[in-house]
């Protein structure tokens, strides 16, 4: 049995320990916000946070999660309602087209902004590697800058 937390809830998983976290989230816990895009950690649609850091859940076996804490897109909004500033920025820039990659993009950006609170375009170019097949990159870039600004303002207050 593997015990860990998902969105602050305790989870005990007894099935095959080699199951990637992504499938545990999607089929065992019915949290389908993290998406299956490539299965090899290339596209980032499956990105979640493990102990606060962005991780590709499609290549992380559930056996590695003992005692750890997972946050998915469903758990990002405070109280399940108050949008995270990154989500808010995504909404204001109206980023999504098909939307399939966007949960992963947001989870990657939340982690990125923790390390780069005032990101340059070059920082974004180097660190944001999630794929978007619709090509929403123009708005993603704008939304990252917008989120950084609003988070900086939030701290001043």
């Amino acid at each position, binding site marked *: 049995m593997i015990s860990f937390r998902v969105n602050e809830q305790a989870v005990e998983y007894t099935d095959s320990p080699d199951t990637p976290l992504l*499938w545990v989230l999607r089929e065992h816990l019915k949290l389908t916000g993290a998406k299956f895009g490539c299965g090899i950690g290339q596209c980032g649609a499956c990105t979640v946070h493990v102990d606060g850091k962005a991780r590709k859940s499609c290549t992380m076996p559930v056996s590695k999660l003992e005692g750890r804490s997972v946050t998915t897109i469903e758990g990002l909004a405070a109280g399940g309602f108050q949008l995270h500033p990154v989500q808010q920025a995504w909404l204001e820039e109206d980023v999504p087209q098909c939307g399939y990659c966007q949960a992963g993009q947001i989870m990657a950006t939340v982690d990125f902004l923790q390390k780069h609170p005032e990101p340059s375009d070059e920082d974004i170019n180097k660190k944001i590697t999630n794929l978007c097949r619709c090509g929403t990159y123009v708005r993603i870039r704008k939304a990252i800058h917008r989120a950084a600004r609003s988070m900086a303002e939030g701290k001043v207050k």
Partner: protein
Amino acid sequence: MNRFSAAPEEPGVDYARRRFLITGSTLSGGLLLGFPVFAIGNPETSQGSRIGFFIEILPSGEVIIGNNQPEIGQGLRTTLPMLVAEELDVEWDKVSIRSMPLGIVKTADGFAWKYGGQGVGGSTGLTGNWNFMREVGATGRLMLMQAAAKAWNVPVEQCSTVPGEVICKSAGRRGAYGELVKLAATLPMPDAAPPLKPMDEYRIVGKPQRNKEVRDIITGQARFGMDTNMPDMRYAVIERSPVLNGTVESFDETAARAIAGVLDVFAIEGPEPGAPYIVLAHGVAVVATSTWAAIKGRRALKVRWKESPNSNDSSEKFWSGNRQMMTQQGQVVFDQGDFPAALDAADRVVRHTYEVPFVSHAPLEPQNCYAFVEKNRVHIIAPTQMPSGASRAAAAVTGIDRENIHVEMARSGGGFGRRLTNDYVAEACMVSQKTGWPVKLVWTREDDMKNDFYRPGGTHELAAGLDDKGRPVAWSQRLASGSKHYRRPGVKDEDLWQAELYPDDFPKAMLDHYRLEYFHNTIGIPRGSWRAPAHTANAFVVQSFLDEIAHETGQDPLALRLEMLGRIEQQEYSGHGGPVMTPGRLTRLLKFVAKRIEYDKPRPKGRGVGIAAHFTFGGYAAHAIEVTVSPEGGLTIDRIVAAIDCGYAVNPNAVEAQLQGATIDGLSTALGLEITVRDGRIEQNNFNDYPLMKIKRVPALFEAHVMNYDDKPTGVGEMGLPPAAPALTNAIFNATGVRIRRLPIARQLREKMDV
């Protein structure tokens, strides 16, 4: 109702049946009469808080508008309800959206559309519903006014509306829609659509509106096909033949069945080589209690594949075959004037050859489908662009009457033309029917990469005869390709070219002597419609060739384009997007993007600017792109200016998004994407060897301009793609003198600059 006539069609479907279906909607007194009474509803469909099929108004004043079209990222679930809300006269922030399933009904004449034609392809999702959805809204508004008139005992002519309310000044009354709707729902449907609102009174339409579902998407609540979860559902994956048209010789399922969770293993029958597709390939299905168990079971399978007539197919053979064929005379498919004589008489002849590769759609959500086949009925939930095709596929596989096949369209994680075909729906039905279980079929990324209806690759030879001023007077395009109409039922060999060359495209109408020649090459790669199908290849070669003519004759590439576009004011355009093409609309865009990017500004060596413009399916787009190329061949895109003229932009925000996305799609594909074949097998596997563009290559300086033209919307999904690649390669030439004549660019610059 002709919006499917030119839209990409699915292989493996019965076209006689499809035409019948469309005719059926005519005969049933519906859409072609201009007023879709049948689709809007009748007394049986209006009840409680619902007026017809599309409109529901709650006592609170909240409005729920039905969307009848697939959502693949193009934003129709927002844009179409905007049209209803505008005419219904409600506040946009009171509107939420309900997705409608496929609606077909059996009539004496066959099947008819219940909710209007459904399906998205050829950028027709908006244009095909522009009048219809406004009429839905206007009819709802009229019925609410009729209800108020009845309740207040006043003539309806004295009633009007403000958002969400009917008012009657003479009676001094006002009533909220939420209160009037129950009465309105009991009234007979008007027998004609009321007049539509003048466009200058629009409050919602024509204004940038956010995606109605953005909040669901960014909180992980939006449900895609892949997210489907139904009671007692099992999960299936299929190991498909790695060799094109290969078959299953035998398989050993022992190890697969030993995997915990694996429930069943069996063969899936594919089509005969050369036969129309229902599914793409022969394979072996593994059904399990979870996707992961099914994947593990599949890995444990031992399948012996039987080789096929295509086992020796290779990209190399295809490309050399093209060149070989082109040494001969091909099929002259269009001939205007006397091209050979004009070429002989020309002062100068320019001739170049280009290659455009096979590419995959690679939507980020791999194919998937939920199917539950019971004795006499089928339930399907799928990401699909053609729900009627899904219904046909299910009927073909199960033998169950289409009347009893219920198709729900899940939000699609991209489409790009891939989901015009419903092969994965057919597969899911096969698995469910065989097992008796409700099943969700999941494709892996590798399945998706190796089993697609790829954009056809082709070799294009362009030749132009020029007059003494360097102006083209004669033009020909010779194309050897694998037509996408390969294995399509009912297409004659001599018509295969029609999917690859559009005779009315620029610059035919500007020239007295113009010839198109086609050679059909064979290769076992399945082919289909990829966003802006043949326009992607033809815009690349024509817009590249124009630049080559300009450079070789010392002319400016923009000036040459403007000269040619200025030769005529308007031309007939018989293909999809007609009936006319107005070159001046391309001229306007070209001048605009050139100005924005400071086209005339001198640039240092290694830095360059390129332009291109193209007319696609009724819409116009142009790009100006600025690049820097390092001495080692490292390419940086510094700046992009894109502009689209889609007539009247219904939702400028969504149009801008499509223009941004289509531009990036065009560049991503041109930079690095190609599908290749060796030993009859697709070589690419996943995003590691099919490298979609990442954000790092997209410049922060990216302008997307939506330029209205008149009061008629055109489609928008595809127009922004075709000019992007040639604008990029023209910029590369301008910066370096290196001409890219083969896509993708890949490592060519590094190789050519090293020399």
